[in-house]
């Protein structure tokens, strides 16, 4: 008989050891990234996409809702950041809040129409809405700049009242994104393990049961989608700062597919950190394999197929399975033989 892993003490922590290790490693990236043949901007991209993928995984992994048009909210966040800067006020905090809020608003609007659906119907509706937003972004030349993009977005300085940091340098901006990423990770970790997060996870397993236990399933599905869209928008706002522009291509169907691939390859369905793993693998593969051949996506696609076929729980799932096997053998000591010969069902 297998037991579920005890609700680990990590679930109750605000900051886990894994987070600390990750942040520490990430904090050293600007010191060595150039020496391994990569460049600081890649670090920024990895952080922003990690934030985006974690937000996306609230919907795909935690809630089990297949959203294939999530690029829309990432893109809306980017445009909102730029437009706020040009038309409202050129203040970093206001513009980031705008990216968060406008994308959240768009997410809430879509959630109104899709939250009674699930499965393939849900997926199609998210694609349809994603395409609508993408088309609007391309066609509204006057507002978004169409396919030319919204250019000349500035990296506004981070003004804390007492101190003011210029973010135009990639290393400075990297650390700024890292701080926001760390805060967002704490928030999403807590959200996932809160009563709200557990209920969303329960709804993923059985909407019927949850409804008969008195939960307004529609409201939970709509709210997690809205939250996810808002955080994706925040990531999009940071992406606009990184690129100094906002383009419609991140909103397209195939770019929306990237975040799905990253999340699945990394193991978002079984692990909180899966999406981050996926982003690392994806972006580094893009740069390393991409330097050798233009057809790098072919090889990543093959990796994706292999993972879906043989390790559907993704890289994080495979690693944790390996760890579990290891600790099971250690713990059971002399019963390892029985385990090897399949005398007992084990995971």
């Amino acid at each position: 008989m297998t037991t579920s892993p005890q609700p680990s003490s990590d679930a109750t922590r605000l900051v886990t050891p894994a987070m600390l290790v990750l942040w520490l490693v990430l904090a050293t990236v600007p010191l060595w990234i150039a020496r391994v043949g990569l460049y600081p901007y890649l670090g920024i991209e990895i952080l922003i996409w990690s934030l985006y993928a974690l937000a996306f995984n609230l919907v795909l992994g935690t809630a089990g809702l297949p959203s294939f048009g999530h690029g829309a909210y990432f893109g809306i966040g980017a445009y909102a950041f730029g437009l706020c800067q040009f038309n409202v006020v050129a203040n970093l905090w206001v513009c980031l809040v705008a990216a968060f809020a406008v994308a959240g608003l768009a997410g809430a609007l879509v959630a109104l129409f899709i939250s009674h659906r699930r499965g393939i119907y849900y997926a199609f509706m998210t694609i349809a809405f994603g395409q609508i937003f993408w088309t609007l972004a391309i066609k509204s030349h006057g507002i978004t700049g169409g396919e030319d993009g919204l250019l000349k977005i500035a990296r506004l300085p981070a003004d804390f009242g007492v101190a003011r940091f210029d973010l135009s340098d990639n290393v400075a901006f990297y650390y700024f994104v890292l701080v926001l990423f760390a805060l967002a990770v704490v928030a999403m970790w807590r959200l996932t393990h809160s009563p709200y997060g557990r209920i969303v996870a329960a709804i993923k397993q059985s909407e019927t049961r949850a409804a008969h236990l008195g939960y307004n399933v529609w409201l939970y599905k709509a709210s997690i989608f809205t939250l996810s869209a808002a955080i994706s928008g925040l990531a999009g706002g940071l992406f606009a700062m990184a690129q100094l522009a906002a383009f419609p291509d991140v909103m397209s169907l195939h770019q929306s597919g990237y975040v799905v691939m990253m999340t699945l390859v990394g193991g978002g369905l079984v692990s909180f950190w899966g999406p981050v793993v996926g982003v690392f693998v994806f972006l580094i593969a893009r740069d390393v394999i991409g330097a050798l051949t233009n057809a790098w996506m072919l090889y990543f696609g093959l990796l994706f197929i292999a993972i879906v076929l043989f390790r559907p729980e993704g890289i994080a799932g495979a690693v944790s399975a390996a760890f579990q096997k290891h600790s099971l053998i250690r713990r059971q000591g002399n019963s390892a033989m029985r385990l090897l010969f399949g005398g007992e069902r084990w995971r």
Partner: protein
Amino acid sequence: MALIEAAGIHVRFGDRVVLESIDLAVPEGEFHGLMGPNGAGKTTFFNVLTGRVKPSRGSIRLDGRDVTGLSSHRIAAHGVARSFQIMTLFDEFSARENVTVGLPAFRARGFDMRHAAANDSGFARSAMEILATVGLADKADIRARDLSYGDRRALEIAVALAQGPRVLCLDEPTSGLGSDGVQRLAALVGRLKGKLTIVAIEHDMEFLFALADRISVIHWGQVVARGTPHELQQNEWVKRSNLGRFA
């Protein structure tokens, strides 16, 4: 006044009439059995009672309040819990967490996004008490999907009990259980009897005739016979069918 009052419940799916007209009044504390052949409309009636299906005509009153056509989560919040014939558990959750999600206190904190659910010892304590009543206390940490069939049946009921319901609707609770399992379940339901109002669909006549205060026989979307187990044994319809053979 009865706790549950269903009057003239009529349900049709397209041009197919599933429930013709069902009347049912269950006083507080009664164990009311529902029986009848497959396809008679028993589960559909349950679905109406628990808000899954809206009746085309008729009304449901709960403690005098009209709850006709309310959605499942609202009816559940009014104190109606149900178990499912086809097991409907949170398979990836431990037994304890399955029950925790059912607790009204947990539901009250449903939009709490800031605190860790696992930090609350109150939830854990309440969940353990409920698991103990169904005999699953020592299996609290086992994932629902890894429990044995009989234990999953018990967990089905535990999750419903977690709601602290006034009305417990059991949809074929003995389905698929061996005779040991049925006895265990009969003992459990016997302990619950009188403490809350129970409506149970059941094919196991021995089980139902031993426990139920009254039984309604549903056929062709109507109640064709109703009475105490003793009265039903005298009923012509029941005699002609093979339903009364265990009594």
